[in-house]
């Protein structure tokens, strides 16, 4: 069938409400008599709480109640962690601190008042008597000994894990060269522009609880909240209204979500908490936070023999939903886009007195890609082989897919060399290298960085996931012919109300505007998993596609019944089941002229109730299916279908990013000369949305490479607690991004899509840092840690 919408730059159906200021994020939902919550949070990284005095706070105007840890200790269960690793130590993480505070921002008391100003005023009146304890801040020091955060555990090591295939000792031992490098992946804050927010309303008559939360996982949240507060899941409704960005930070179950639900039940009133930016940087999950040591073995021709990565993962004080799992994703992706016969990862995951790390856009894969790509650059520099060439020599060829890695994965499909060739052609690579050489002779510092990444998307088969890797969809055609799609995915900016409608409209032959995609309401949508891991289209879109196919099978039978013909005499084209289309198909695609009514060939037509038709739209059929007066025997009335799709594998998008930078010798600042990316995310549904995902991801990479870092001082105090100190990239700091793509369909799903949500944050950082290192190669620089600030560069240039 010809696609009218799929593959086109269709404008988003989400946008009108957003550009007019008429959308509803959590804080835009107004319920009468709502009470407001503000939190007392620990000002120390590690402290014993001797006492909490709420007397003055309770006297303050507008204050209704103040809850502390002892109020909830027996009432609300611990914040959940979904990953189960062998030997994993799991601290008891209560929604309000009990006897100790474990990080700056740790919630200690919840003040409930009639408005936010009153609540915040009263927070300052809660007197907490702290006894400051030694803080564990540095992850490597945490592993070695010193103060122990959880005395019962004996040390600060949450788990150790070794994984990988092949004989790593032999692989490194037989290599012509073995190169080593310490690599830091600094902590990052996701900084969704809308922070977290919760509104909870208990309905005492109905004994129902509704929780509006800015989350990426409404159904998983509902299940976990039901368990935490001991509330029947079928009376609990989670609604995800408009969500102002997530980037993984809202792929979680947070203390505040459970607490607000519980407080609403205690007070029989709606209660609301809207996170401030300070709270967001203190107490919403961070990303990255690894310090690792890579060893890579190679032969003199550049062929890789083995890679070992010993990594210390800074988990923070507690496990959030997926905290311990993130370093394991790093381990899975250590083969990068290369044939490496032996790979080993050794993870030492440690508790520190900081906010938990968890899934921030890329979630373990940017770390892996950065390690592998930096290692390839070391090999190139050591052997004097061009950085592009050393990569090319180690690619698996397209006919080697599915490609088995020594990390235990099966890459689905790929053509890495074409992406590299195209990117080199786009940027004019050989000419650029010549210009670089000439510039160096003139004393200018130009560098070129390359990243040929592969990532893992479409998370994922349930076997490989902590709690379900499938996705669900229901597709209905309403009696009036309008199409309703209910997806278990939970988009929050990605534009799937549009891209899913594109797929549905093409498959059903209806107008795009006749399709509505509903998501993020557990009272309406069947159970789903949610949006993360670049999975929504590859897994959720596929669930929708198969639901549509099921719906069409039924519609086809009803059409044959209504038209009094064999189903085989009907074909679906352009939204219609018609005999002409079937004949055309039988005649090898040549389209017959439409047969005038009454002149139809013998016997089958016309019958009165089909009103002389030889074709029916799927919308006609939907009406008949609902009226249900004349359906084929044993046919259920209505026209809807539900499908839960379980993927058999992950998908593996890939691509090449190349950037060129020039360093200012006087200031150490750099400017981008070019940024070129050729990405392959499989089949593309909407090129405009794909470009948008890549732009956003690449810019978050630029943030990591050059600007962003969550800094805690040696006492565990958060130094970068505002957007003044935590440097999110601004418009003028970003170069023009030149994008192109190749399209290698994934065999894992019938749409052929792979996913694109995280490619930019995974692929770009090594290219940027690689370019800076390349520019500084004349100074003997082999590696620099992120964020690479002008100060560090200046010191090298002016040493």
């Amino acid at each position, binding site marked *: 069938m010809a696609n009218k919408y799929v593959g086109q730059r269709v*404008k*988003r159906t*989400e*946008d*009108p409400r*957003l*550009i*007019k*200021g*008429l*959308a*509803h*994020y959590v*804080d*835009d939902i*107004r319920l009468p008599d709502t009470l407001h919550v503000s939190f007392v949070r620990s000002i120390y990284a590690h402290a014993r709480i001797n006492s909490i005095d709420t007397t003055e706070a309770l006297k303050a105007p507008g204050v209704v109640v103040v809850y502390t840890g002892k109020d909830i200790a027996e009432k609300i269960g611990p914040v959940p962690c979904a990953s189960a690793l062998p030997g994993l130590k799991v601290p008891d993480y209560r929604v309000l601190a009990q006897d100790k505070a474990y990080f700056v921002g740790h919630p200690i008391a919840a003040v409930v008042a009639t408005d936010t*100003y009153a609540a915040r005023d009263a927070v300052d009146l809660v007197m907490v008597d702290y006894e400051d304890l030694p803080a564990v801040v540095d992850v490597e020091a945490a592993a070695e000994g010193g103060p122990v955060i959880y005395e019962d555990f004996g040390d600060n090591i949450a788990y150790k894990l070794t994984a990988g295939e092949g004989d790593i000792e032999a692989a490194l031992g037989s290599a012509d060269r073995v190169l080593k490098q310490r690599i830091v992946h600094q902590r990052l804050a996701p*900084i*969704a*522009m*809308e*922070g977290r927010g919760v509104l909870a309303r208990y309905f005492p008559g109905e004994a129902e609880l509704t929780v509006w939360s800015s989350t990426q996982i409404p159904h998983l949240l509902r299940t976990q909240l039901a368990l935490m507060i001991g509330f029947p899941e079928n009376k609990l409704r989670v609604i995800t209204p*408009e*969500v*102002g*960005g997530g*980037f993984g930070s809202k792929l979680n179950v947070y203390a505040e979500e459970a607490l607000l639900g519980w407080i609403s039940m205690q007070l029989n009133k709606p209660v609301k908490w*809207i996170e*401030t*930016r300070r709270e967001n940087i203190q107490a919403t999950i961070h990303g990255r936070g690894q310090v690792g040591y890579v060893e890579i073995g190679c032969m003199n021709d550049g062929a890789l023999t083995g890679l070992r990565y010993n990594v210390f993962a800074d988990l923070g004080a507690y496990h959030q939903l997926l905290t311990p799992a993130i370093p394991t994703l790093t381990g899975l992706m250590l083969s990068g886009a290369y044939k490496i016969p032996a790979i080993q990862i050794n993870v030492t995951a440690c508790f520190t007195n900081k906010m938990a790390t968890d899934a921030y856009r890329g979630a373990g894969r940017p770390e892996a890609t950065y390690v592998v790509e930096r290692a390839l650059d070391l090999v190139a520099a050591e052997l004097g082989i061009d950085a592009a060439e050393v990569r090319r020599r180690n690619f698996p060829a397209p006919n080697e897919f599915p490609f088995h890695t020594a990390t235990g994965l099966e890459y689905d499909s790929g053509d890495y060399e074409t992406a590299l060739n195209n990117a080199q052609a786009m940027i004019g690579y050989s000419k650029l290298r010549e210009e670089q050489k000439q510039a160096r002779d003139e004393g200018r510092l130009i560098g070129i960085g390359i990243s040929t990444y592969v990532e893992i998307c479409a998370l994922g088969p349930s076997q490989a996931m902590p709690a379900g890797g499938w996705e669900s969809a229901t597709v209905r055609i309403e009696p009036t012919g309008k199409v309703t799609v209910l997806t278990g995915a939970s988009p*929050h*900016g*990605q*534009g799937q109300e549009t891209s899913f409608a594109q797929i549905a409209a093409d498959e059903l032959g209806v107008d795009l505007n006749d399709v509505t995609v509903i998501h993020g309401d557990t009272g309406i949508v069947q159970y789903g998993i949610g949006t993360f891991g670049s999975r929504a289209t590859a897994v959720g879109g596929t669930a929708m596609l198969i639901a549509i196919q099921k719906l069409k099978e039924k519609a086809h039978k009803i059409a044959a019944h209504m038209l009094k013909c064999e189903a085989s005499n009907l074909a679906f084209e352009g939204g219609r089941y018609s005999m002409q289309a079937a004949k055309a198909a039988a005649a090898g695609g040549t389209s017959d002229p439409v047969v005038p009514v009454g002149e139809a060939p013998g016997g089958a037509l016309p019958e009165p109730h089909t009103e002389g038709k030889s074709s029916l739209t799927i919308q006609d059929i939907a009406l008949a299916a609902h009226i249900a007066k004349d359906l084929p025997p044993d046919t259920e009335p209505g026209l809807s279908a539900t499908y839960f799709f379980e993927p058999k594998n992950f998908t593996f998008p890939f691509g090449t990013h190349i950037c060129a930078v020039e360093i200012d010798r006087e200031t150490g600042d750099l400017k981008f000369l070019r940024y070129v990316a050729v990405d392959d995310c499989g089949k593309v549904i909407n090129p*405009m*949305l794909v*470009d*948008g995902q*890549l*732009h*956003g*991801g*690449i*810019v*978050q990479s630029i943030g990591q490479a050059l600007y962003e870092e969550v800094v805690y001082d040696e006492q565990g105090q958060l130094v970068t607690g*505002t*957007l*003044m100190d935590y440097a*999110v990239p*601004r*418009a*003028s700091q*970003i170069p*023009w*991004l030149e994008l192109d793509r190749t399209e290698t369909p994934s065999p894992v799903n019938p749409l052929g899509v792979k996913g694109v949500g995280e490619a*930019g944050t995974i692929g770009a950082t090594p290219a940027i840092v690689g370019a800076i290192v390349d520019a500084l190669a004349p100074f003997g620089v082999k590696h620099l840690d992120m964020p690479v600030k002008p100060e560090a560069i200046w010191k090298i240039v002016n040493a």
Partner: protein
Amino acid sequence: MKTAISVDVNGVSHENEVEPRLLLVHYLRDILGLTGTHIGCETSLCGACTVFIDGQAVKSCTMFAVQANGSSVTTIEGLATNGELHPVQEGFWERHGLQCGYCTPGMIIAAAQILERNPQPTREEIRHGLDGNLCRCTGYQHIVEAVEYAAKKAAG
């Protein structure tokens, strides 16, 4: 202790008694119910709360409602005229200048201000003009294109 203020918002005049410490953004959102103006940081660093006050783009989280007394405020809800989108709004839709949409109202107001001051800006001028507004989704490129679209459209 409340103070009486009179503010024209999107062409409608409002008389209210407010606490002197009430921020303008809270006045717009909580008293007038105009929730299109968002709060992203409360420290005037992100620009999500940007509105026009007497024709100047201002971050409404860092101004008291009482300071707007006697002023004329335009929020995102008041930007379209007679149901027709402002060219910048149209540009954002046409060029995919938004993803999650949270920074968008402030971004659109800031972009409209750029074009009022400089109807045909270069890409570099657009980027510098947007530096007071953070977007975490788009990487800014489509926003720059959206502003270019609006500039071109306004030029006819």
